[in-house]
């Protein structure tokens, strides 16, 4: 009986638990803070979660495939600064955006090349990139923030359509597209397959190298996209952008039920995980809780999520 129910609805059941946690957080803060439950606060939160959310999409895929990308924050900053420097050279802002995106994809391609082609450890390679790219960022812009972008560019991160921030709409569309992609395409089956048993996938005649490479390029692209939105939202490209963002992204992914060793996970879960961490942070901020306690609470939540996960896996 027990085995039957757990097999039938393992994933949807996990999602249900996350939704309950999210609902609990929303109700809790609505009671505790009179400012929490308002359209403007919710839109404010949606506006803030875009960068983490964009990167969480490829991160979920990569973790499902049994790897990890720790260099996302540095790729974000690298793309942002490349874009800023290109702009300072007097190029059109949209060409600069393209340059930023290409820079991100190149970084991702380098990650992918080393990890997929040379079968190096993903964590080691991406830690290397994390440090190296961050250093490069300081070299390129000499540590000084770049600003003064044209008003049209700020549309991306600061404009609201009706009451909804434009960047949140983009995030939603991206999530829906990626969700559809992960449900319907053969490529997504390969991703789950590699996470469960890489050898079997390889012997089935599928190019594991190609799948892994594409995933890391995707990660570079989305990190760069997050960088573009961040620069637009903050009106400034700075060397410290995206520092430690990988922790938030991975926390959202893991709270969302993606298994750290790969093979299991879903974008719907990641999205709920994302909402949990951003609303938790926002609610605690509104209550004036010191960040030191916020870190404790987030960490405890992560431990519970991962503990719960191991339970499912067994």
């Amino acid at each position, binding site marked *: 009986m027990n085995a039957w129910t757990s097999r039938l609805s393992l994933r949807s059941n996990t999602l249900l638990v996350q939704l309950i946690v999210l609902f609990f957080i929303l109700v809790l803060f609505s009671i505790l803070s009179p400012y929490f439950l308002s359209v403007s606060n919710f839109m404010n939160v949606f506006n803030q979660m875009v960068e983490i959310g964009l990167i969480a999409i490829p991160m979920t895929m990569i973790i499902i495939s049994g790897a990890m990308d720790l260099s996302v924050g540095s790729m974000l900053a690298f793309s942002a600064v490349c874009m800023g420097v290109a702009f300072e050279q007097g190029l059109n802002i949209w060409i600069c955006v393209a340059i930023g995106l290409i820079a991100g994809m190149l970084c991702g391609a380098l990650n992918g090349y080393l990890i997929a082609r040379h079968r190096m450890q993903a964590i080691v390679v991406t830690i290397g990139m994390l440090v190296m790219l961050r250093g490069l960022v300081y070299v390129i812009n000499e540590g000084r923030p770049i600003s003064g972008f044209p008003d049209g560019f700020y549309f991306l991160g600061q404009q609201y359509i009706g009451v909804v921030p434009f960047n949140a709409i983009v995030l939603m569309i991206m999530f829906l597209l990626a969700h559809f992609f992960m449900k319907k395409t053969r490529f997504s089956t390969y991703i789950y397959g590699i996470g469960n048993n890489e050898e079997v996938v390889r012997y089935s005649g599928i190019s594991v190298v190609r799948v892994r490479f594409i995933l890391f390029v995707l990660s570079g692209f989305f990190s760069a996209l997050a960088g573009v939105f961040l620069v637009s939202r903050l009106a400034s490209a700075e060397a410290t952008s995206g520092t430690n963002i990988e922790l938030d992204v991975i926390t959202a992914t893991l709270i969302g039920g993606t298994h750290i060793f790969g093979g299991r996970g879903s974008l719907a879960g990641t999205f709920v995980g994302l909402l949990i961490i951003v609303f938790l942070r926002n609610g605690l901020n509104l209550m004036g*809780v010191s960040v030191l306690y916020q870190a404790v609470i987030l960490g405890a939540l992560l431990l519970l999520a991962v503990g719960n996960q191991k339970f499912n896996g067994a």
Partner: protein
Amino acid sequence: MKKMMTTVITGVLALSLAACGNAGPAPANGGTEGGASDPNARTYFINPKSIGPAYWAAAEKGAVQAGEDLGVNILYNAPTEADSSKQINMIQDMLTRQVDGIGISPNDSKAVGPVFRKAIGEDVQVVTWDSDAPETERQYYVAPATDEEIGELLAQTIGEEIGGEGEVAFMVAGLGSQNQIAKSDAAKAYFAEHYPDIEIVTTVSSDDDQQKAYANAQNLIRTYPDLKGIIGFAGGEPPAAAEVVEQAIQAGTLEAGQIAITGIAVPSVVKNYIKNGTINTDIIWDPGKLAYATVYILDQLAQGNEITDGMEIPTVGTVTVDGQSVFIGMLEVTNDNVDSFDF
């Protein structure tokens, strides 16, 4: 069943931590939630660059003290790392909370522009403190002295100590931070004018990370064996440099007095180094008074009062107002007076 338990435990945990967090760090804000406290009391958000360093902890005391003296609520909070986007998220959250004023020490002087504009639009008072954002719509900037004055004073101190010639290294907390750039540029200019024989060999940044500052100092003394002076432009840098130099002296790789150190640091942190003679002069202002003045200025603005030159701020003293800047003055810490500071 077990999942339900997990859910419940998570909730209870969040609730209890939230409750104790609320009581702990911000005593002045006792029970603002749910409108239990005096609903007429004004609330100000005082935002340092990060939470953790001793400097900001000293500032918190001053802010809380001002809150008690003026009968207003103070929320003192910041991200754990000096990160601009997290800081701005927090400011946005505080605007949602409808605070009456915000006192911000911006990590990026330009990135705070849009959120300041939003705050002003919502009739929230905006003051920067410790680090400025001159190109934004902030109303006032509360500082100990101009960055130029501090940078020049530091350069003059080290120039005198090393006899006007030799290699000097700069240690800063952040390469992108406006106040760090302005101070180090002023020091550079002072050397160029008064001590042309002093060569600035490098500028290293710790990103406000104590371990990194320490590692930077170790690298400095190894990379530049002829180094004669180090200037630390932020609270964490001089103690890191002094610790490394003292260790090198004990290990015999460096002679006592070979490297002169000065900088900006809280007296309690550098007390031992000053007594040992590793640091002769340390420049500081009272971060508590700086935060106190910030709260006071915000409260004056919220009441519609004018900020005038020579005005008297209780416990802080007379301040100089120059345009949109408010200066509270600096202190020099030496072996003679190091015991007289309580922060």
